[in-house]
């Protein structure tokens, strides 16, 4: 059998970390810190922000299936300006571990603008480019599925920062290796995956979708085998670190399912 275990990594590209455990964007916020010892985290990844505020999708936005969770939040967030004015100062004050800001732009240009704004802010250790949210049309997803676009995006942003530049990829693609490689070639310092996969649930009583939006993003234990397979593929395709997610919702993220259990 193939040996795929890597020695536990405790530094990520340019970043030194206490621990290989981080949190998944959108599933963890300061509120969660009431429940755990912050210092056990390697880094804190905030919920994805966009250039302008986003209302998000209509309810219902959630449904729990037999083996996971469907969601269609739609990147509801206050937008970049309010994030910088209101959230960032609190994060700076509260966090004792590195802050990674997850963000998503509607165009290459918007990604660039956002990065430039964030570069002017103190207290940020890195970025996670969300090119993979399944719940937002024409934003994110078009980026994550095309290796050329992923390459261009990374090549555009990587010269602009010395901070960590993580690209979060979608599993909803034919060949994860190609896209991972494109991110590396473009200058990303790490890859994180996976975001949620397409998922749907039907109310058998009336044939309607359980989510207002129809199809949503599926996370949880049911996607763990896929996450492991794609992480393995991605890790084979590149030399930069690959951050795996796909365990269970809300603060149960493992940095690397391949290694963590050996702690």
């Amino acid at each position: 059998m193939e040996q795929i275990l890597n020695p536990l990594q405790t530094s990520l590209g340019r970043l030194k970390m206490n621990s290989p455990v981080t949190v998944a964007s959108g599933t963890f916020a300061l509120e969660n810190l009431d429940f755990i010892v912050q210092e056990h985290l390697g880094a804190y990844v905030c919920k994805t922000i966009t250039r302008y505020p986003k209302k998000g999708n209509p309810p219902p936005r959630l449904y729990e299936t037999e083996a996971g969770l469907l969601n269609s939040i739609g990147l509801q967030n206050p937008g970049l300006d309010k994030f910088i004015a209101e959230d960032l100062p609190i994060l700076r004050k509260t966090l004792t571990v590195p802050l990674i800001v997850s963000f998503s732009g509607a165009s290459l240009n918007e990604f660039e603008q956002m990065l430039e704004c964030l570069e002017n802010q103190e207290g940020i250790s890195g970025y996670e480019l969300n090119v993979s949210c399944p719940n937002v049309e024409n934003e994110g997803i078009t980026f994550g599925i095309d290796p050329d676009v992923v390459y261009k995006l990374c090549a555009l942003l990587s010269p602009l920062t010395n901070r960590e530049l993580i690209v979060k990829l979608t599993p909803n693609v034919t060949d994860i290796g190609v896209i991972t490689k494109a991110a590396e070639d473009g200058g990303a310092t790490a890859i994180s995956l996976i975001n949620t996969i397409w998922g749907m649930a039907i109310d058998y009583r009336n044939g309607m979708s359980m989510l207002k939006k129809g199809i949503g993003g599926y996370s949880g234990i049911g996607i763990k085998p896929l996450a492991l397979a794609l992480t393995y593929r991605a890790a084979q395709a590149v030399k930069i670190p690959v951050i795996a997610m796909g365990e269970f919702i809300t603060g149960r993220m493992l940095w690397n399912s391949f290694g963590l259990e050996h702690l």
Partner: protein
Amino acid sequence: MDKPRHQFLERTIYSREELCGDYFILWIWDEALGEKCQPGQFFEIRAHYSIADAEETRSLPKLFKPISIYDNAEGRIGFFIKKVGTGTNALYKLKAGDLLELIGPLGNGFPFVTGRRILLVSGGIGYPPLWYLQKELIKHNLLYWVHGGSGQNDVFPCDEIWTEDGSFGKKGMVTEGIRKLIAEKKIDLIYSCGPIPMLKECAGITNKLNIEHYCSLEAYMACGIGVCYGCAIPVGYENDWNYLRVCKEGPVFNAGEVLWNKF
């Protein structure tokens, strides 16, 4: 930050009451916790599973379920629950002596008032939070409580009962009698809790009559602590609204500000 910290608790069920239909009450006892609770607040609760069990049965971790505080007297906190699906079924199976996992108290709760003429309107499983509420309000206000259920298994102590099938009390929807009651009893404030269509109907009436009206909403929740934005509902004015979180900005909202036609 001096916001209240969230609590993850495990408490023994000291008593379990079985009611008619699919209803039951679980009681825990914790005076310090009781002192923090307000009517209209809720807990996220879940049947306790040991990790050993989870592995053996491969039963998966499940979402916590939002359940209102039904009663709170000298530290005896009651959860009045209807068995409707997976999560509530697991709660139903618990016996006195078993462990309950809780997070809370959560949410904003009902505003407290004095010297008002109040109508309480509940439908189905909207009953429990109004029980706790009326206990607090009764000494300082005039109250009249009307409750609606689908049949004789869904009725509980109050001033006036409606059932859809006419098997108990008046026949019809509880909202049918409200206009008359408001006039007769000179009501100047309404508290309501129940299914969305009932609340919507009720809000239509109070909006027209310009009567103050607070309603407690139901939403499918994942985190329950404001992190995931899964429970959001549309609140504001036609041209200036946002999705607010039922678990954090709610569950109690000013009925005049909920955008009932955006659901």
